[in-house]
């Protein structure tokens, strides 16, 4: 399953996706939760707290700034730049905050 949750701001995307991710994980599935929002908040709804959410964001930003090497594989990326959320969900932040593109 590869599921993307989209919608207007404030409609409940983050909350919905976090509950889906944790529910799937509780049924024994291996779940990766990707925060693709340019204002990444999924960590809070998954339950890792805002300090850890911000840490993942700054890891993501240091990649763009060239302070960190890009991970060679998907697995390395998740292990190096991801974080363990409750119920065994693995969380990673995909987008960065300062992005000049419109919309």
């Amino acid at each position, binding site marked *: 399953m590869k599921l993307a949750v989209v919608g207007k701001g404030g409609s409940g995307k983050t909350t919905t996706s976090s509950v889906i991710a944790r529910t799937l994980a509780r049924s024994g599935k291996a779940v990766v939760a990707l925060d693709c*929002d340019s204002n990444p908040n999924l960590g809070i709804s998954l339950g890792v707290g805002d300090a850890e959410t911000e840490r993942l964001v700054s890891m993501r930003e240091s990649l763009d700034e060239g302070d960190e090497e890009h991970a060679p594989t998907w697995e390395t990326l998740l292990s190096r730049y991801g974080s363990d959320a409750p119920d065994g969900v693995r969380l990673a932040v995909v987008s960065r*905050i*300062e992005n000049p593109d*419109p919309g």
Partner: protein
Amino acid sequence: MRLAFVGKGGAGKSAISGTFARTLARQGDKVLAIDSDPLPGLAYSLGLAIDHTPPIPDDAVIERKEGEEGPRWRLNPDVDPFDAVERWSVEAPDGVRFLQFGKIKGDPRDLWRSQMAFRFVINKLPAGRWNVVGDLPGGTRQAFTGWGTWANTVLIVVEPTAKSLLSGRRLARMADLDPENPKRVMVVASKVREDGDVEMIAKGTGLEVIASVPWDEDLAEAERRQLAPIDFAPDCPAVRAVESLVERLSEETVST
């Protein structure tokens, strides 16, 4: 007054900025309300039944020719920003002029030039002729990356939730990243329900809370019915709170 409302999606930016613009216009001030969200936004909260207005035409921006210096895109020198606002904005109730950048209907790429034109026109609009009230898209993507440079005051709309506070802190940080366009940054507390909410928002953002807009069922009902809060429930506590905010910021306005 050049005021941008920013904040997490769903925090209440459109409802608050629409009410703000209408209230300011009722005082006799010349108000330009702008919406740079590619999704439906400010029009309904201003009291316009429309979603789509004609976008600024593509030829309002021109591309750098080969051998020329400077940025790749710029405003067509034939386009005067003040005239462009007059021409491409539409009239909203209370005499508010409303300008939005194109709303997505089909392929978003079709609107790209028109959206650039919108940005140039707003950034080059002469100071002092309009009070500009802007409703920016939710989140952090647009706020200070070229789309909010026109503003000299930024109001971050924050709800008493962890996600909204985190977004508020990020936006406050980003507002400081643009030393060439210094901005006064303050917070509007939104959907306030309990004692302690405002304090939580002040503490969580580290910023001055200049207004507190209470949770208000009338505001939610206005959104359901696609009506401007100021028309649907002019006396409801949330509208009253926005009116107080206008009063507080009014000494900076340009009177007509």
